[in-house]
């Protein structure tokens, strides 16, 4: 098995690593690739930021107005007819 991987493969491994799906060999290949590839290193760092952004996304509370709630109620009652 070749020990060098492409950038595309590295990006794939970065995602699989999050779930612990890499074998020791794959982890080594990724580590080696990141040592020499600054573009994939940037990708890897920013990928972590993006994942954190999903987790930390501030809630933007939304409300339905009384008319919309009324409509939901009416739609249910009318479905009987």
């Amino acid at each position, binding site marked *: 098995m070749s020990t060098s991987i*492409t*950038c*595309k*493969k590295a*990006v*794939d491994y970065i*995602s*699989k690593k999050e*779930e612990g*799906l890499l074998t020791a060999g794959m982890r080594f290949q990724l580590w080696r690739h990141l040592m020499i590839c600054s*573009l*994939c290193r*940037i*990708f890897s760092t*920013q*990928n972590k*930021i*993006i*994942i*954190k*952004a*999903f*987790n*930390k*996304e*501030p*809630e933007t*509370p*939304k*409300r*339905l107005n009384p008319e*919309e*709630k009324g*409509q*939901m*109620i009416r*739609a*249910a*009652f009318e*479905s009987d007819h």
Partner: protein
Amino acid sequence: MQFTADKEILFSQWVHDHADALYNYAFRRVADEPLSKDLVQESFLSAWRNMESYRGETSVKNWLFVILKSRIIDHYRSVARKDELHGTDVFFDQDDHWQKGHYPHEWISDPLDPLVAKDFYKVFRSCNKKLKQVQQSVFTMKYVDGLESAEICEVLSISPSNFWVLMHRAKVQLRACIEKNWINK
């Protein structure tokens, strides 16, 4: 619930008490106001039709959430069937290295720094919306609901290899869109 009037009063109370919570939950997962409203509306319709089967074993709120979640999963499944799972990959060249013009660049500030987070999230949300719906669904299941890839594959009836291609493309596209549109790079 032998009297229709009682049933109607109770149901109206449920809508008033829980519609907003359901709406927020749906919106966080599908990021589209009209679609979120439709999902909530359908959930209430289903609750109305099945009111007799509600036995009070869980709270009304939990019961309504179970209904909504199943509607959201139906939505995810329908977009997984409809959206094309693969597309052309413009980010990598024929040797599978980063394509010139699509090189990732360093971001000079931390997007989650409270000073810039507001602007960042504006871009983040609009970039998310530009993804295909199936890609958005996969991200939501993975990073908002914390499901593992195998569970997502099962929900969407897609193969692991399709899942990883989807995930890979979605990540590369989202990152690139943020970089292009976020001033603070």
